[in-house]
């Protein structure tokens, strides 16, 4: 008795998985999402093409310019500008983390320290301590001396050249106006 062979549903699952996988391989056309990625100024046109290609109803795309522009701007900033945290502004001050999230984490809790792997490996990324004084907030959030997270070695070994962030990816402060709580 084999539960695998005795179950028509599982046999059907196997058949469908095999079929879909083969169809996927047959229809592959390279990596259009990479090949067609346009430079930022041209992105909007390419998006329209992509949206059309995927058959999304254009009725829902009307008046999306504002949204689209804002997204592209955010993404562009993330891609082009230095990834170091911004200097505190009045906006970020209004959404300062709640007191409970600023407490020192007891042993055994997740780390939120700056990215120690980068500093330790002498990467070109600017060490937290060397940042300008304006980067006060990031310095405040550093947990120097805490143990390194367990996956540091993995990232170093497998993606050292790709990882460029000097900080842990704790999410940024809420939007201006303080409408959101601390992430």
């Amino acid at each position, binding site marked *: 008795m084999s539960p695998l062979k005795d179950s028509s*549903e599982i046999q059907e699952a196997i058949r469908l998985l095999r079929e879909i*996988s083969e169809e996927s391989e047959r229809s592959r056309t390279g990596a*259009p999402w990479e090949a067609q990625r346009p430079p*930022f100024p041209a992105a909007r046109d390419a998006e329209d093409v992509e949206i059309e290609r*995927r058959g999304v*109803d254009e009725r829902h795309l009307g008046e999306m310019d504002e*949204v689209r522009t804002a997204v592209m701007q955010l993404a562009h900033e993330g891609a082009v500008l230095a990834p170091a945290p911004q200097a505190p502004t009045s906006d970020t001050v209004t959404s300062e983390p709640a007191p409970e999230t600023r407490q020192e984490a007891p042993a055994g809790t997740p780390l939120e320290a700056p990215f120690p792997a980068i500093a330790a490996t002498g990467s070109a990324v600017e060490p937290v301590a060397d940042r300008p004084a304006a980067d006060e907030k990031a310095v405040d959030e550093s947990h120097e001396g805490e143990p390194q997270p367990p996956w540091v070695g993995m990232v170093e070994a497998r993606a050292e050249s790709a990882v460029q962030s000097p900080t842990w990816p704790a999410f940024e402060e809420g*939007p201006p106006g303080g409408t959101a709580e*601390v992430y």
Partner: protein
Amino acid sequence: MARIITVASQKGGVGKTTTALNLGFSLSRLGQRVLVVDADPQGGMAIASNLSRRTSLGLVQIIRRTASPKDVLAYTRDRQMAAIGTGLSDPDEVVFFEDAARSGALGAKILVLSAGFDYAVLDAPAGVGSIVQALLHVSDGVVLVVRCQNILLKSLPVFLRLVQRVRKTRNPKLRMDGAVVTMFDDRDPAEAQFCEEFTGSLPETVFLKTRIRFDPVFERASVKAVPVAMMPGADAAARSYLDLAFELRERDMRRMAEGGTHEPTEGLF
């Protein structure tokens, strides 16, 4: 354009949300710019990543045009990863969200929001409802989350038929990126044997080589609302998702290198 991946399964409770969050995070650690979208009305990913404390706004408000992406996208400090939730707060909005999925509005907004990212990882609700279909309509690939249990595997055909239908009718570019075994417990000989038989009966490209083993640290990471890689003592669990991200990335890079042709070329230039 972003490569859009829907993380889906027919059944709930198989590790779909955990996979979406940790896969997205791991891809961002590999240098990719990643958008993680919680498209499940249950909002599991938003809770598991603390996004729900960051903002209550999300896709619903974008669809209604009552909020801008600046209000709803939560970026990591290094700006390599962003997340967005559903923005659902009452039952009426769930109905609106499902209507938006049926009309195409949800898919359109996801496409627009994904612009500028390398990957968009969509956390789908369980099942084959309108939201899942909307996500598949705009996706490049599906990562199927599978738990090696007899009863769970029996439900697979329904979802797989949906994938086939979407490919044939709405989105021929949709491909199976691979199935990933989650919550795998090889200390249980029966489960281990069943899993080996099931995966072994399929071509090796169907299942991703990486298996996500059961580990209590996932639960602790969920409580702390962080990706598992940020938990102390989570080496194996963190490594598994980094491996998964690496494997998917490797598959993508190989496809790019092949340039979409099945014929070998003669020389690089």
